[in-house]
């Protein structure tokens, strides 16, 4: 996969994988499917167990994207890993609150706080 095709940017910080979501709009099906595959490969293929998803660039997301996050959360739990989401803009945070996914996902204000969760 070329760099321009990627939907996440990966960085390692103190043994934690920080995956920054690069798309502003996580809406259309093809994009969401591709994002899901990239995220799932972090745990399924690479065996990573400490992952932060950085949402700072994300302005829109749909319920289909929420579905991928839930599947990722379950995969991490099965692998006895931990998934943390951070830097979520207010409108997106409202979506997590409406769906009450803030009760099952670990959400942090920023990356510094997220890194303290491991």
């Amino acid at each position: 996969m070329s760099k321009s095709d990627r939907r996440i940017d990966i960085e390692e910080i103190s043994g934690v994988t920080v995956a920054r979501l690069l798309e502003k709009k996580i809406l259309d099906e093809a994009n969401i499917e591709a994002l899901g595959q990239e995220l799932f490969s972090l745990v399924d293929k690479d065996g990573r167990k400490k992952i932060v998803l950085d949402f700072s660039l994300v302005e829109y997301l749909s319920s289909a994207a929420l579905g991928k996050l839930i599947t990722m959360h379950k995969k991490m739990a099965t692998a006895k890993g931990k998934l943390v989401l951070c830097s979520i803009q207010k409108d997106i945070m409202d979506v997590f609150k409406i769906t009450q996914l803030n009760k099952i996902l670990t959400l942090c204000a920023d990356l510094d706080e997220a890194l303290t969760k491991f």
Partner: protein
Amino acid sequence: MTNPVHFEIKIPSNTGDGLAVQEQLILLMERFEYSMRDIFAMRLSLEESLTNAIRHGNKLSPDKQVEITCRIDHERMHVVILDEGDGFDPDDVPDPTLEEFIERPCGRGLMLMRAYLNTCEYSDGGRRLTMERERNSPLPILED
């Protein structure tokens, strides 16, 4: 002041065409200078409703179309989406926040539309959805 606009289109049952219509409707909202909050609400609702009509209603059938009607003015945006599927009963959609459903990867679209729209009503056996968002609506209202 921009005059009210009426917009009608029929699209084939694929999500790419749905996305293109969504962009056209958002451009209309921008022309009428709706807030970013209103635009966020309608973009989310349009994405959920068009995906439902195309994927769950028409089941991506090349023989079926989705009809979209929009009326926009300075007070509100009103959209009707009609598919050619078998319909459904919105009351049969379980509450995705219940403990037994919260970890399901799907089934949140209807809940989100109801949270963001002043009107979100199904008719014609679940084939027709009428959506409306008023300018500067306080929705969604969150408990905390």
